[in-house]
């Protein structure tokens, strides 16, 4: 099993000493993200997110299946994460590393368990037909802070996605092709975003946002906070590491709320831009089968 290359003692001390002098290697303030880029693909539900050199591709797809026997009224929603050897040689196919397990658990808790997607709306015929929505997350390049980038990618991909329109008449289910009817968006309830803090120092007294890979190597602990812009915490995960003062964690949460509001506004703006780009000739309003509620 190939192991991840650990930073040398020199590198380690250099990063830590710089942090003690309130400096980061790329010159950012402690609570600032790297430039966030978000590009939607030609297809609906494909999005590429990059935080500096970290790059993530998320693709949403939907297919018709039979719902689970124990939940006949719910559709199926899965998030699949993949860290391939392309990302780093230490990742292997079909053998999830700890990073991958924790990443997929975090996404699961943030997006799925917090009820961001209304799975009941994915059910077409109770117990017989439902949509199975699947988001595939591919990490193309790993330079730290995978969680925040992956979460933004998943939320963006799901909000951008359109599933084929359907109708039921006399017990007959019809699925329309995009040519017949404009595909419809998923029923989306709230948009959670992850904010990850990395802690440094003997008591974990220094907290950094959006750590790069070299910073992640030398951190003594981390805490991922997921929230939506209404100030609802969806999940908090400080999974071990050096103990950090409780008051400092509360402060981290408050800063996280500000960052989440930024993310939310950023994504709304990007989605609006993309909708405008696709709406050639302003025909979208007429083509859409959606009703204003």
């Amino acid at each position, binding site marked *: 099993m190939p192991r991840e290359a650990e930073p040398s003692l020199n590198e380690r001390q250099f990063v830590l000493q710089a942090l003690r002098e309130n400096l980061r290697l790329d010159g950012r303030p402690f609570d600032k993200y790297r430039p966030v880029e978000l590009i939607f693909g030609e297809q609906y539900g494909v999005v590429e997110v990059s935080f500096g050199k970290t790059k993530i591709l998320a693709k949403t797809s939907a297919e018709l299946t039979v719902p689970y026997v124990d939940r006949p009224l719910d559709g199926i929603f899965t998030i699949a994460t993949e860290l391939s050897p392309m990302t780093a040689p230490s990742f292997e196919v079909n053998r999830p590393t700890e990073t991958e397990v924790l990443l997929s658990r975090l996404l699961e*808790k943030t997006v799925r368990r917090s009820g961001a997607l209304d799975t009941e709306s994915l059910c077409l015929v109770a117990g017989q037909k439902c949509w199975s929505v699947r988001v595939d997350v591919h990490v193309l390049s790993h330079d730290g802070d995978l969680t925040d980038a992956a979460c933004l990618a998943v939320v963006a991909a799901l909000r951008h996605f359109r599933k084929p329109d359907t109708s039921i008449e006399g017990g007959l289910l019809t699925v329309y092709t995009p040519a017949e009817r404009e595909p419809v968006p998923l029923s989306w309830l709230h948009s959670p975003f992850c904010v990850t803090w990395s802690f440094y120092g003997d008591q974990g007294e220094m907290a950094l946002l959006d750590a790069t890979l070299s910073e992640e190597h030398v951190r003594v602990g981390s805490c991922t906070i997921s929230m939506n812009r209404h100030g*609802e915490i969806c999940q908090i995960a400080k999974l071990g*590491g050096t103990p950090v003062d409780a008051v400092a964690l*509360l402060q981290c949460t408050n800063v996280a709320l500000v960052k989440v509001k930024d993310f939310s506004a950023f994504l709304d703006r990007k989605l609006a831009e993309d909708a405008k780009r696709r709406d050639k000739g302003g025909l979208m309003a007429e083509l859409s089968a959606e009703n204003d509620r």
Partner: protein
Amino acid sequence: MPLDTSAYSLALLRVDGRRWNELRRIHAQIRTQAAADGSSYLEMGHTKVMCVVTGPSEPGPKRGGMTGGVGGGGGERSSTADVSVSVVIAGFSSVDRKRRGRGDKRTLELQSTISSALAASLHTHLHPNSTIAISLHVLSQDGSLLAALINAATLACIDAGIPMTDYVVACTAGSTSTYAANDEGADPLLDMNHQEEQELPSLTVATLGSSDRVAVLVCESRVQVSRLEGMLAVGVDGCKQVREILDRVVREKGRRMIQEGTIEKGMSLDDMDID
């Protein structure tokens, strides 16, 4: 399963008759397995877990079958001891018998959390090139599972005599409000049982000893950010209570070992500083 916790506001009593700031009964034993380096058994209410610690010992032979050679341990030399945790959740531990495979992500997350929380408090640098294997068995589940596992692992590590800075103690805290309701009158709750965990927002806190420093903070339910401060305060306070209880167990066991003569002769009870 919808459950009626709305009765709380009437009598301020929870479903099992506790007040908001009361822990469930904690019963703990250490040195339960004679053959193990360290072992413990812990009950928090109806959550029952067992823990066995092996080590610090030389890491076992690698799968590659490398024998001999420099370093002995397959070329992997580390300056600190490796804390490896395995959690086995018995099929009969909860009401519905759920089959959990080895690769269950929830279990893997529990393992990695416990391992990383303990590694920060154990003096692992004193045992280079060695492994501390912590094996946890869940016999019965009734909420606060992660907290019980952390407490049991701490006790077993103390029994194994592994040097550590302080106890890592954990408990859960919750709130009586649902996520949507932003009512200011919501009370924080201490030590959630399974029913409450299903129904109400809750979080698990682990602190280092009786300090305010949080080693583990896990919240898996939706809750207003304004609720967090109250829940965290109650949780940290609960951890202090848990530490007292665990400390009493360790001291009591130590006292008995001296009386029974497990500890070498020439040391009387009066010579030792056990307050």
